[in-house]
């Protein structure tokens, strides 16, 4: 067994001159490309500069850097040393900087980080926020200094052993900051091997990605896997892509891209936002798999995408689905390639009433559930009933997984680790069923909201809203409402207030929207302020999000876009 670093060096020994990475840079409207040899040399420079600053094996290094070259090589530089890099989510236009930097400070205080690598733009604010803490800030710019290592890198590497933690991945949302997923080199390599097999990864593949690197899909599928497996990667910034989605299609055309992972909303977004005039003459026929992952998959989103881009050579057979989570490094299941994935038409009434996925009759009202495929090698999937037994075929239960690519634990939270794993099985909180050996995901046991592939815990929103003056404390519910047009969920907040004065109501609504955006970087679509006792409670007196959601949909259906 080796490490990620060994793989990178093996690959360089064989193909030093092949393309490793093309960074699409928005600032200069150009691309910077690195051969495998260039890539390793650059990462070694960063590693050497980090080593000079006292960083070594096992040291946690937090990366607070915008998307770009410095982030890429700081991450790999740390890996080469056997240090443990952890990428902090990016500061966006909307997040309240003060709150963001306070979060960084909390993470640093809790984590015994050895250093923080910081980009130019964040340096001053971070220095201020971390005042009094004994953690050095390292300028990413300084690491870029082109001084080749004085000693041979072989004296520095291999610094890590297979069971050492390779990196920390923050599983999601703001609550996720407290949940650092520790992944060993062994787990990550097992995942890469199994997942490469599932998608038939080949040396002539080209991965194209706009995904953020602090999220499992971007970090593994769109970064670590291609670079260690020796597959060229074309990487662009998520901010750049959201503003200008056509760049993804141009990159696929120019580099003959073959693989691209996307959350479901991106299919709708690309299909509706990109204009014909922007992509005239593009050829997308090289794209062999568009892999839908990280939020519920809608068959309608796939159909819309195929219809929109078939004239540019996109093939229906390239549609594909993956079910993944940070706790398993990344993929759990994957549909067979070429696709398209199987669509199960089930009776919606039976699903609600009996929690069974019964095939719909020809004329009855059917719900389309898109297959997530089969478990990848080394991974077992069970569907478990509340009594702990395995659900029969087509019966809904909680999805549990066990694999050789699972987390070693949550960073410095042994109790949380023990709670999440039962006899080696990780209970995902997702609901689904098995049919014909394939997994179908139908919902969630937890009240998690997923917006554009990003996990949002309703309690995080409710905590923020509860602090707003005028909101009746504890009388707040946040939940997701499906938005078919966007292919994702909208966030709704219902809060009981004591005023009926229109100016006060306007002010409370304004604060709800602003505070949630500034702290969680998501937009609340629906805000409904009601009188007292509107929210639905459970028998134990707690606000029931699901029952409140039903009432909201019934009462305000004229506002809700389905």
């Amino acid at each position, binding site marked *: 067994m080796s490490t990620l670093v060994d793989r990178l060096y093996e690959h360089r020994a064989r193909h030093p001159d092949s393309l490793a990475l093309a960074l699409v840079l928005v600032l200069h409207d150009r691309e910077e490309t690195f051969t495998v040899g260039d890539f390793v040399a650059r990462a070694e420079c960063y590693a050497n500069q980090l080593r000079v600053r006292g960083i070594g094996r096992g040291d946690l290094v937090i990366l607070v850097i915008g998307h770009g070259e410095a982030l890429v090589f700081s991450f790999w530089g740390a890996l080469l040393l056997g240090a443990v890099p952890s990428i902090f989510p990016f500061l966006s*236009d*909307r997040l309240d900087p003060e709150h963001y930097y306070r979060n960084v400070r909390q993470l640093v205080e809790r984590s015994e980080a050895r250093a923080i690598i910081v980009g130019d733009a964040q340096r001053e604010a971070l220095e201020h926020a971390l005042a009094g803490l004994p953690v050095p800030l390292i300028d990413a710019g300084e690491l870029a200094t082109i001084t080749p290592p004085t000693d041979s890198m072989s004296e520095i590497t291999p610094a890590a052993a297979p069971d050492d933690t390779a990196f920390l991945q923050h599983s999601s949302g703001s609550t996720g900051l407290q949940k650092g997923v520790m992944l060993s080199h062994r787990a990550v390599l097992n995942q890469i091997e199994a997942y490469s097999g599932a998608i038939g990864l080949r040396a002539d593949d080209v991965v194209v990605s706009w995904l953020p690197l602090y999220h499992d899909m971007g970090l593994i599928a769109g970064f670590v896997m291609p670079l260690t497996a020796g597959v060229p990667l074309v990487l662009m910034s998520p901010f750049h892509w*959201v*503003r*200008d*989605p*056509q760049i993804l299609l141009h990159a696929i055309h120019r580099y003959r891209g073959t693989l691209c992972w996307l959350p479901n909303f991106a299919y709708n*977004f690309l299909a509706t*936002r990109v204009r014909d005039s922007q992509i005239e003459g593009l050829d997308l026929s090289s794209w062999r798999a568009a892999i839908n992952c990280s939020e519920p998959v809608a068959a309608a989103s796939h159909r819309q995408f195929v219809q929109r881009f078939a004239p540019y050579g996109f093939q229906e057979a390239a549609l594909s689905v993956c079910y993944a989570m940070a706790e398993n490094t990344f993929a759990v299941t994957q549909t067979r390639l070429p696709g398209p994935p199987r669509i199960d038409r089930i009776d919606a009434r039976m699903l609600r009433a009996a929690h069974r996925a019964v095939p719909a009759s020809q004329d009855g009202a059917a719900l389309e559930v898109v297959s997530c495929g089969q478990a990848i090698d080394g991974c077992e999937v069970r569907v478990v009933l509340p009594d702990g037994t395995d659900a029969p075929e087509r019966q809904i239960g909680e999805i549990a997984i066990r694999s050789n690519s699972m987390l070693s634990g949550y960073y410095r939270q042994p109790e949380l680790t023990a709670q999440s794993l039962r006899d080696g099985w990780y209970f995902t909180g997702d609901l689904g069923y098995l049919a014909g050996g394939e997994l179908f995901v139908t919902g969630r046991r937890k009240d998690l909201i997923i917006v*554009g592939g990003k996990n949002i815990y309703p309690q995080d929103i409710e905590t923020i809203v509860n602090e707003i003056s005028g909101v009746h404390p504890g009388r707040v519910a946040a939940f997701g409402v499906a938005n078919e047009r*966007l292919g994702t969920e909208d966030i709704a907040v219902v809060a009981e207030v004591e005023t009926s004065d*229109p*100016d006060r109501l*306007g002010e409370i*609504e*304004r604060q709800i*929207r*602003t*505070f*949630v*955006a*500034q702290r969680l970087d*998501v*937009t*609340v*679509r*629906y*805000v409904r302020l009601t009188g007292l006792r509107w929210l639905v409670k459970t028998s134990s007196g707690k606000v029931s999000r699901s029952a409140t959601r039903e009432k909201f949909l019934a009462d305000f259906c004229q*506002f*809700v*876009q389905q």
Partner: protein
Amino acid sequence: METKRDMKEQLATFIKTELMRNPDYPLQNDEPLITGGLVDSFSLVELALFIEEQFGVHFDDVELTAQNMNTIDQIVGNIEAKL
């Protein structure tokens, strides 16, 4: 040609009904839309399409940033510069 005030009213109505889904919201012309969490970057593209249909003014995707389009006043200023 539309007056500035008409334009602002039309934009406010679109934002309140289509994007925020609350026609009663007291939206101000100088209120931050993006940094204030009223509109997300995806909706900004929708807003640009509305502007194109209503006023015949086209914004490139790269112009649709929080710095550029954060208030109704600012958006109308940008529209007028292009008319």
